[in-house]
């Protein structure tokens, strides 16, 4: 981790360690004791971090995530509204709202049925595969043009003071690369495939850290069928960690 590029912000509390979005997801699923969650500490820690490097995208996302957590916690801490005479009125309004929503939803279900018919028709229509499917649609551009274009972007970025991602290898980059590799190989890849022969020692170390991080985040699974057998890495399917979170 020789670069200045921000790694994902990792929350560390007594009961949870991981990225903020995962914390929010768990909280939304009711799996976090919100009353005991030190949101103030988390925010302070993130603030301290932004003094070192400030990524606007990251800040936006993090503020949104923190706001969502604050809202959840506020709801959890506030006393439940006592059932008063207002409640009856509210209930009536709520019912109305629900009914409205249900009617809208029913309409979409009806058109979904109509779309299903169109889908069935179109699935019986076949076209010839397009000619030359693997030729790039490009002409008149040379490698030097590409090279020069990139230099210009870098130069302009420097003028603007934009943060230019360093070329160094980061855990986040290697995590993304491993996931991309696994996405392309649903049958998994051998452990060795993560470490090409030309990889530098730094790359190997960082890639290994990235793999550990992915294992911890339950994004990949590492399997060795027998002792001394090839270790294989698989992507975990989204269902494995989202069970029940979504009606699919």
């Amino acid at each position: 981790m020789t670069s200045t590029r921000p790694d994902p912000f990792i929350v560390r509390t007594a009961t949870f360690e991981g990225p903020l979005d995962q914390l929010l997801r768990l909280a939304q699923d009711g799996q976090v004791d919100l009353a005991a969650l030190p949101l103030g500490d988390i925010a302070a820690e993130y603030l301290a971090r932004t003094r070192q490097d400030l990524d606007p995208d990251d800040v936006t996302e993090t503020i949104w995530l923190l706001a969502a957590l604050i809202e959840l916690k506020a709801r959890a801490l506030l006393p439940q509204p006592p059932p008063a005479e207002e409640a009856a009125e509210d209930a009536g309004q709520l019912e109305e709202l629900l009914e409205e929503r249900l009617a809208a939803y029913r309409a979409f279900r009806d058109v979904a049925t109509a779309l299903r018919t169109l889908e069935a028709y179109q699935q019986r229509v076949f076209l010839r595969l397009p000619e030359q499917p693997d030729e790039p649609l490009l002409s008149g551009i040379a490698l030097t043009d590409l090279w020069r274009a990139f230099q210009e972007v870098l130069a302009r970025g420097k003028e603007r003071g934009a943060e230019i991602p360093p070329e160094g290898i980061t855990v986040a980059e290697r995590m993304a690369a491993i996931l991309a590799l696994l996405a392309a190989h649903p049958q998994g890849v051998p452990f060795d495939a993560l470490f090409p022969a030309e990889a530098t020692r730094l790359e190997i170390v960082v890639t290994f850290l990235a793999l550990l991080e992915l294992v911890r985040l339950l994004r990949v699974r590492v399997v060795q069928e027998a002792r001394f057998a090839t270790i294989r890495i698989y992507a975990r399917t989204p269902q494995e960690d989202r069970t029940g979170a979504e009606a699919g």
Partner: protein
Amino acid sequence: MTDPRIREAANAIECVLLVSGEPVRLDQLADAVQAPADVVAAAVALLRQEYAGRGLEVQEVAGGYQLGTRPAYADAVRRYLGAAGREPLSQAALETLAIVAYRQPITRPEIEALRGVRSEHILERLEERRLIKAVGRKPTVGRPILYGTTEAFLRYFGLRDLSDLPPLDALGGPPPAVAPAETGEAGSEER
């Protein structure tokens, strides 16, 4: 007798449609066959007429024309290709897609409010199938992504354009008797 210019244009168009494998717009056809727009339009009409009662048909889809097989012969094609056919969309995916199609541009929270369940995974799948795409961000807190349908969506359902969508009956009454594009109702759905 058919005008020989139209005959020639129709023949050339037939060739372009065969190799294209996707919808070709009228202007692209005009460029390829180097004929004026009215000749091209007449040539397309001639082709559609000639393919009546045949195995192939010229379909008008996603703002262009494509040469495809008639659904009646899908079984023969599948036997030849040995393919089981494409997987149809799940019911949940189809409903979500319908919401995006009629309410676009729309954010995930808005979709979830309508469906009553989390839809992140489904939206991802629909995006991977190129049926929807991010079209911008809503200028509210969190700047949530706005989704809309793609050209591939039109092709998938064989629609000329979005006004070709089946009418949406959001009020729970009987469907409108008039074509939606004319009642203006479809427009108000799409905001």
